[in-house]
């Protein structure tokens, strides 16, 4: 019998920095909080490790939304990485919007290692926003 899936389940790629956001995800897990299962976490050493190319590539290969999460400004474990991220991804986000892609599809948030509840909340709200937007067709490979 064919499976009828009436609800669209988005695929969200979350780049999480090893020191804060990934620890935040861990805290959400060990505190047994449940959050949207649409999120696939990719651990990076620092949010500034995220090359804008990674983000575009994730969209091309089927992500419906991309989230980059890092330490709060000033808390970067490499001293200043997330300050560069902030400039770089602010510019990238505005450019993606300018090219006609819904800006909600690409999000950046600061989540510290002690913010397990915030991690779960952000993942839920991002998943909900992208569910409403529907599948990403604009940046996706046709292959």
């Amino acid at each position: 019998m064919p499976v009828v899936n009436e609800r669209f389940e988005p695929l969200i790629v979350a780049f999480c920095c090893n020191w804060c956001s990934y620890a935040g995800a861990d805290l959400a897990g060990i505190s047994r909080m449940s959050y949207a299962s649409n999120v696939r976490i990719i651990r990076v050493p620092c949010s500034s490790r995220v090359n804008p190319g990674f983000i575009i590539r994730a969209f091309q290969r089927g992500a419906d939304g991309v989230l980059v999460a890092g330490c709060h400004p000033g808390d970067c474990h490499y001293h200043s990485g997330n300050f560069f991220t902030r400039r770089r991804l602010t510019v990238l986000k505005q450019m993606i919007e300018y090219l006609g892609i819904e800006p909600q599809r690409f999000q950046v948030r600061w989540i510290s290692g002690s913010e397990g509840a915030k991690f779960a909340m952000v993942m839920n709200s991002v998943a909900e926003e992208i569910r409403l937007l529907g599948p990403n067709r604009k940046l996706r490979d046709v292959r």
Partner: protein
Amino acid sequence: MAAVIGWRKKDFWWQSPVVFLEDPAAAHRLVWDPFTVYSPVKFLLEWQASCAAKVGIFVKGCDSRGINRLLQDKRLERERVVVYGVPCGGKADAEKIRASFPAKGIKDVTLLGEQLVLTVGDREVRVAAEAYLLDKCLTCRHPNPVVYDKLLWEEVLPRQRADESRFARVQAVASLATEERFFYWQRQFERCIRCFACRNTCPACNCRVCIFDQAEPRWLGKANDPADTLNYHIIRAFHVAGRCFECGECERICPAGVPLQELNRKLIKDINEAYGDYEAGLDATDQPPLGTYRGEDPAGFDES
């Protein structure tokens, strides 16, 4: 000095490509006419990689900012280059001339101050130059070289129109609704044949190995996929963000007419608005805006 890089005249009136001259006796082949628009700056990289001798180069205002670009990116040894600055009153657009005059009759085109003098058949026609200049020259803010060893003649005045029209096209595109904007860009990018001319001519695109040429990891598929083309244009524009100095060669050289300046200027506009006015290529010692930060920078996303 083993050679000079300048421009020469080719067979047709609209052709003034870049030339390397090694023989001083051939110096009379160098020209300066309304079509010497090609940027000679990128050739310096190949020259310095293959030859230890000094080289001379003629630069217009826009090209000179390319020299600063390469210096700032530490891709050029300044002491091995002699820069001849040429103040430039703007370059003519052969397409605009062809649209108004029978192309076969044109023998010669010269720029005299604000007038364009055309020899059509055996008569001479004088027209106001502004209507026949390249779009990128009409919005040029620095017609005079900003770095040079020797200036060839007196500096010229920048055009009045340059400031007001700088971001006009960006604003027009940005005012469209999200879906319209997407289809606008799809229509532009679907013409792209990925010849990489925009990258090849751009002095800001000076990486030793370009990610689009890399086999492993391969960032760009070989198939003609609209998402790949969009990927190319996002990454190309982003790699020159904060470093693009608006010479407009990418857009002019594009065989498909993709309005690349609308992308470059969008980034310049956003960076200026968020992180303070910055003009790339004016000073080889300063720090491009995406290579630095301030603690109190604004963010374009939820920072709570």
